[in-house]
């Protein structure tokens, strides 16, 4: 209650001229997420994170009650659909904030809407580096692809891996990951002994695996879309004796995502990745978060996507607290810049220049913990900025 009074007073004083609505009006947040189709798991996890935040931390931000409007932009890769839904959220539903965005095309297509309508846009997953450059009102709370790729290259070069073979899925994100890995790894003195781009869908990995085996690298860096392809590759890697030949497997951490880790099974054991969130992260914040998650969604596992949604809501909550419930895009972004907090994933902040996330990237290894496959963190890079923008 004291809070509410304070924010009303603040609003009356500072924004009497510019803010026609009362601070007590609900704050409408429009979530654009793929809820059906091939990326339905993304939408589901992000929505879990968002709702979990509201359920555990309260649904009143800066004195205004939160009202969520979820729009399904399936398949998530069609920019025209996402853009139309964002336009409707702004024009018809009169939302104050646009949020969500499972995949890059969706964020790219909506960014001009945020600019034109002057609405803050919180990206909770889409990970291509350039996303934040597309609108001045855009803030990201997930990760960027170069940000999660560079640390594994650095780690490899420092840990006796001299020769690496790269295998990526042949699409935009795969090319980006390949480029970043090569750049960081060769700059650190490593050598790329082979490169392969595999088809995105249903590739037959057997010839690639044989080629890798013949090349005898110290390690293989892979980037594949999480799902069936990853599972097929990992199983083939063990079955064809590459593990036995002493070839190590390194990747970005979206590969052994908690959602599919059990499906990969024991073939994932020993896989080393770099990433910003692991369910096994040891901190009181994460313990409270994962416990609340299992209570609310006993059938699913908390992963990086639900984390992106959860932190996105935290950012919105803190910004509105700071602005006294004012969601004006300029004020929102000003308040968000440089904001720091301890998330369940670890300490994170919003870069005041790029509006992108700065966070600790962990090096983790897949191990079995209490019967469950987990990404156990054993090394870290603190306050790591997106290298894609440097």
């Amino acid at each position, binding site marked *: 209650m004291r809070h509410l009074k304070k924010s009303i007073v603040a609003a009356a004083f500072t924004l009497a001229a510019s803010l026609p609505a009362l601070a007590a009006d609900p704050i409408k947040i429009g979530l654009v997420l793929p809820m*059906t189709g091939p990326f339905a798991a993304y939408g589901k996890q992000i929505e879990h994170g968002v709702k979990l935040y509201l359920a555990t931390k309260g649904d009143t931000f800066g004195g205004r009650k939160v009202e969520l409007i979820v729009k399904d932009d399936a398949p998530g890769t069609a*920019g*025209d659909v996402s853009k139309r839904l964002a336009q409707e959220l702004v*024009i018809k539903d009169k939302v104050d904030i646009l949020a969500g965005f499972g995949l890059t095309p969706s964020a*790219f*297509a909506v960014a*001009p809407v945020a600019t034109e*309508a002057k609405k803050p846009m919180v990206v909770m997953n889409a990970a291509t580096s350039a996303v934040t450059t597309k609108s001045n009102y855009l803030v990201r709370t997930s990760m960027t692809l170069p940000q999660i790729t560079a640390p594994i290259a650095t780690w490899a070069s420092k840990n006796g891996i001299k020769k690496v073979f790269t295998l990526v899925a042949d699409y*935009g994100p795969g090319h980006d990951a390949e480029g970043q890995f090569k750049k960081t790894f060769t700059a650190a003195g490593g050598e790329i002994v082979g490169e392969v781009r595999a088809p995105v869908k249903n590739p037959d990995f057997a010839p690639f695996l044989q080629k890798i085996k013949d090349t005898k690298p110290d390690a293989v860096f892979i980037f594949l879309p999480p799902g069936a392809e990853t599972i097929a590759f990992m199983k083939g890697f063990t079955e064809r004796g590459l593990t036995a030949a002493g070839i190590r497997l390194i990747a970005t951490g979206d590969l052994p995502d908690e959602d599919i880790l059990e499906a990969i099974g024991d073939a994932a054991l020993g896989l080393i990745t770099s990433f910003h969130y692991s369910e096994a992260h040891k901190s009181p914040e994460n313990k409270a978060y994962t416990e609340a998650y299992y209570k609310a969604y006993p059938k699913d596992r908390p992963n990086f996507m639900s984390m992106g949604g959860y932190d996105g809501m935290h950012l919105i909550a803190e910004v509105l607290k700071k602005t006294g419930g004012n969601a004006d895009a300029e004020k929102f972004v000003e308040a968000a810049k440089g904001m720091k907090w301890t998330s369940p994933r670890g300490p994170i902040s919003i870069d005041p220049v790029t509006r992108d996330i700065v966070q600790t990237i962990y090096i983790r290894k897949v191990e079995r913990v209490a019967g469950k496959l987990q990404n156990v963190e054993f090394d870290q890079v603190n306050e790591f900025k997106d290298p894609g923008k440097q």
Partner: protein
Amino acid sequence: MSMPPSSVDSAFSATPLRDASRWHPAEYAFWVLPVLAYFVFGENLSLLSQIAIAALFCLSLDLILGYAGIVSLGHAAFFGVGAYAAGLLAKHGWGDPLLGLAAAAAIAAAAGFVTSFLVLRGSDLTRLMVTLGVAVMLYEGANKATAFTGGVDGLQGVEVKPILGMFSFDLYGKTAYWYSLAVLFVMFWLARRLVHSPFGLSLRGIRQNVGRMPAIGAPVNGRLVAVYTIGAAYAGVAGGLLTQTTQFVSLDVLSFSRSAELLLILVLGGTGRLYGALIGTMVFMTAHHFLSGINPQYWQFWLGAALVLVVLFARDGIMGLLQKLGTRWTKPA
């Protein structure tokens, strides 16, 4: 459109054909609807524009499937070619919308012309596979050429200039709506003249009995190549429109699901009727919009249920059902 008398046997009356080509009062009423919609659903203009664009795309499939009987599971190939043509032009400085549409139509038509020779070989099942194959190859090509197309991230920096230098695209989608609707109407009018022309009648003849057509002097292959090229150009224009009104091209424009959904919409609306394509699109997109709004996770179930009902009780689609009801009403038995 009147039939040239020389092509008609003197004993044969062309009156029913002439009647069919005349505008029915219901058609005038139909075209008033989108104008009314502008005032009634002023907050949904971006959806309405996309319905108009999808309707134009569906119309293009109706020309080749409904009239000429060429089944296609890869019609999105031409939609995508048009979308990328308009997008790449606008990205590199030629942002005039009408120029973009003309280019989209021309390039898609060229793609249609070239691939039509593949489609001519073989019958229905082969055609399904060939059209699907062409679309998949284009999809993979666009996916790989990330430097050129942006790959799965989508084509960035599409800047479209105001239409005729006067009407710029706005957040509310007003310009986009009138623009899409005007293009749809003009293209529909042309298609309508086409299907009622001797050329259009020969297409129907080919669909109904391909063996007899050469006997009455209609060159089957030439006609099929022509209609396939025209259909591709129509799809290209629809793709170009989508690019211009959203100022973005996603790889999804070439996806299999876009081709498959299109076929579904056309079957829902009714093939070989032109209006079937329009009504099918309206019903499908509106249902999609409301159902997914009500229930973001499970809306596809209701859509599936509706389709099963249509297949069970309205074999010729919604348009077929309407026509049946219409004849029963005007001529009581």
